[in-house]
Every structure is written in C-alpha cells, then in structure tokens.
C-alpha cells in the first residue's frame, strides 16, 4: 500500500497522477478463512480491521453482496456524538468518538472528522428534565457534555428561531466534541487498511446460507461458491433477520426504512449539528454547503430503501418552524436505508446460539458514530469470546430483562 501524504501528492504529480494504485484489491475468494465477516459496511470493516490490528488475525474475508459502504454506512447523515444515558452505552459510544479523533492518522485516510459540536434541543419541559439528567449522567461517565441556555443556543446557531409558536427552545444538551465525518471515507479507509493487512474484501458476493454441523458453524454458501471458516461475524444491519434465519435463530430486531434528504448548496450558515427530537428533525451543513436533513423512521417493517413523502413533509415542516430561513430552499435528493431496530434502542454485540457465529446489529438509526468503537469491541469478542465493551450488549439481555434503555437518548434517531 502506498502511504498517502503531501509528499506522495507531489511525487504523483510528476507522472500527472496516473500512478496511484487501487485503494484495495479485488481478490477471488479462497476456500477457507479463519474469520469471515458478512457485510462490508463500516461495522463489518472496522471489525476486520481491529481483528488484524489488535489481535494479529489477518486470514479474514469480508463478504459484501453489493458494493462496500453501499448500505446504511453510505446513506446516513453522519452525526457523531456520545451523550447517551446508560453506562454501557457511554463506554462504547465514547470509545468510538475518541477513536474518531485520530482515525484519519490511524488509517492514513482522511475521514474528514469534524468535531464541530452537536446540540440536542430541549423543546418541552419533559425534554429539559431528560437532558439535564443526561448531562449529569455524562459527567459521572467522563463524557464531556453540558446543559446550555436558550441564549447560548442562539449564540451557537444564529439562524435558529428560539420562540416558535408550538415548541420554543428551552435549552439544549451540548457536546462540543461531537460532530460529523465523511461516511464513505470511513468505509473506504477501513477497507484500504484491511486490504493492506492481506485481508480479502469480496464485493458482489452475497451470503445465501450458513453451513453448520452439530451446532457449530462450518462456513457459508455464497453466490460465488461455498467458503469455510472457523468463526463467522454477521454484521449486516437491516438484513440481520435474514442472516439469522439462515443460521437458524431469531432476533429481537425489526427492520424499517429511515430516510434523509439534502438541499441545494448554500453559503455557510450553520457550523454545528442541531437535533430537534420533539419535532422530529435534525440538520447540519456539509462541506459542500448542502443542508443535510433527517427525521423519523417509518413505523412498519420494510426492506425497500425508499422512504415516504409524508415523513419528508413532517421533517421539513418541523425544521422550517425551527429555522425559518430554510423555507425557500430546494431539496436536491432524498434516499432511504433499512435500519435494524431493537426494543431498547441499544445494539446487540453477541455470541449466538450457533457456536462460532457472532452478531453485531441493532444499531438502528444511530450506528455511524459507533463504527470504530463497535469494531474494536466486536474484534475482541470474536478473538477472545468476550469484551468489556460488548458484554452488556449480549442477546441474553432480552431474556434476563437487562435492557439498556436508550429510547430517550436515541430520541428520534441518530
């Protein structure tokens, strides 16, 4: 792998930039791997990366039915924050946020992490109490967040309308080191680093069956033939139920569509991320100047990656009340992704009823921020059988009633 640097740009300029190699190889599948990861989204690729980096396990394949990063990783609105409520969540989300701080250096790939700050607006008395509580919990967890006044909100977001008729802004939960990153770059950076360690990322390779013998995994069937493995990591977000079905177990997961949209590009007007969970909308401005907008998820099971107009209308209506100046903006694109929702709005990182099969799913509407931390924990779980980052997120919690309730922190989403 050629290292990327200012020097390399200058050197390649001498040959008119025709000498750059591919960022990752496109190998044929081998008959057997130590570990197979299904799903080349951020979480699958990060899992593979830390398996190699932290545990020296590099005989790894990542199998992807489409193109890498083409699932939710390439469809999300890239909000990164760690201001959750429960201790296990704080641990994994803050680990993740901290890893984002140096991810570009670590991967030698610019993931454009932008810790511009995230505000979650409180627009009802109930939310005020909820976010104050979260701020206290975060203080105990060592996660730096702060409860801020409406005046401070206005200072950070001059374009906001504080006293909307229905939901005036009563304050906010502020995480100064939250922000955004470039979603594709996160997938590409991990993929390049995995490939450089000798791992095989195999695109256009759909897993169609999980082969088992005596309750233990033997390998997978794919559209490019059967492949053996010792351990299997299922990291397929919205398709987790489909893969679990192949492996013979059921999950506490429902797959629904979540959508987002972006406006035409405009001059810089908002340099923080604003989330308004009561009215179901959130917004940030991309480096290109587009306003990146998201809202609530559909309420019914759906695999169509489309979304629906009335959700767009609901989201836009809420945001216009909060940001009157966007009312005449044209929207450029709208898209959907299939998110994997759990009952307690927390992820599942766990062993499964099949020996050798591990699953990482349930990130739902908010897993982009968690990619590095989740990969870190998942790699440890696969390599050693448990991890302090993931133990609380096991499947058993649904049987034992050990829920990690983040329905408030996850709020509308993200």
């Amino acid at each position: 792998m050629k290292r990327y640097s200012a020097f390399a740009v200058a050197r390649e300029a001498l040959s008119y930039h025709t000498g750059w190699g591919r960022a990752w190889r496109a190998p044929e599948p081998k008959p057997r791997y130590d570990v197979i990861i299904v799903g080349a989204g951020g979480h699958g690729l990060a899992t593979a990366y830390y398996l190699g980096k932290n545990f020296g396990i590099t005989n790894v394949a990542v199998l992807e039915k489409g193109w890498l990063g083409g699932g939710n990783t390439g469809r999300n609105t890239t909000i990164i924050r760690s201001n959750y409520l429960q201790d296990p969540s704080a641990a994994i989300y803050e680990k993740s946020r901290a890893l984002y701080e140096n991810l570009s250096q670590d991967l030698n790939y610019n993931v454009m992490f932008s810790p511009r700050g995230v505000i979650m607006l409180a627009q009802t008395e109930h939310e005020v109490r909820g976010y104050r509580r979260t701020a206290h919990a975060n203080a105990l967890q060592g996660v730096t967040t702060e409860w801020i006044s409406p005046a401070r909100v206005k200072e950070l977001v001059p374009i906001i309308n504080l006293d909307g008729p229905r939901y005036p802004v009563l304050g906010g939960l502020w995480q100064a080191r939250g922000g955004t990153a470039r979603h594709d770059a996160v997938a590409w950076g991990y993929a390049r680093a995995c490939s450089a360690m000798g791992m095989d990322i195999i695109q256009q390779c759909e897993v169609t069956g999980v082969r088992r013998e005596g309750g233990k995994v033997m390998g997978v069937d794919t559209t490019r033939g059967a492949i053996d493995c010792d351990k299997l990591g299922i990291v397929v977000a919205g398709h987790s139920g489909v893969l679990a079905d192949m492996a013979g177990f059921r999950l506490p997961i429902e797959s629904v569509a979540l959508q987002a949209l972006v406006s035409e590009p405009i001059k810089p007007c908002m340099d923080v991320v604003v989330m308004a969970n009561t009215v179901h909308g959130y917004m940030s401005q991309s480096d290109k100047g587009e306003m990146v907008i998201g809202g609530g998820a559909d309420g019914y099971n759906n695999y169509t990656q489309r979304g629906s107009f009335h959700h767009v209308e609901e989201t836009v209506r809420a945001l216009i009340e909060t940001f009157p100046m966007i009312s005449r903006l044209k929207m450029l694109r709208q898209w959907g992704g299939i998110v994997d929702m759990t009952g307690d709005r927390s992820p599942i990182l766990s062993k499964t009823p099949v020996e050798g099969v591990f699953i990482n799913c349930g990130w739902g509407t908010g897993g982009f921020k968690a990619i590095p931390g989740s990969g870190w924990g998942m790699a440890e779980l696969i390599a050693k059988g448990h991890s302090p980052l993931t133990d609380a997120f096991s499947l058993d919690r649904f049987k034992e009633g050990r829920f990690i309730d983040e329905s408030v922190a996850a709020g509308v989403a993200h």
Partner: protein
Amino acid sequence: MLILTCPYCGVDAEETELAPGGEAHLKRFGPGASDEEFRDYLFARENPKGVHFERWRHAHGCGKWFHAARCTMTLEVFGTYPAQTTKPPKAIREAITAKRPGWTWREFE
C-alpha cells in the same frame, strides 16, 4: 405510499390514516411462562424480507384494529382481514401462494 383497505369500513386508507401495530398473530405468554417464552413473545420477531402479516389500526377512520398481509420487499399488499382470528384466513393464504409460490411464515404456508 402504502394503501390498505380497511376490512370493516371498506375505505382504501393511505398510510397517514393508519397506525402500524407490529407483527400479527403473536401468542400471548404471561405469568408462569418460561423466560424464553416471555422473551420470544415480547421481542423475537419474524422480520421477514418478503411475505409478512401485521396488525394495523384504522386510526383516523373507523378506529378499528385489523390484519394485513403484505410483502416487505415490494410493499405489495395481498389482502386485509379482521382482527378476530388467530391465523390468516384461507383466501388470504391462497392469494399469497398465487403470487409467491412456496412462501412460509412461522407455522403457516
């Protein structure tokens, strides 16, 4: 946009008129059930990519609960039927078979 016909009032209702109620035909477990049964009743879901049976409520219409058979991959609706049943009626199952031969869902086919 999803459109379901309410089996009670016959209205073709689009999704903003309806409230989704999750997976249909769950078997209820209560006191005395095992942890596994209770977990499955509360949380484990079919979540299929394809034929699915759901509960819906005609919230902004007659207000009644009903069932729908639907494809989660195409949003195609196979039919709707009243809530007072523990399994999809024969006519609905046949309508599905006509379009998705070989389908299964829990113990139904």
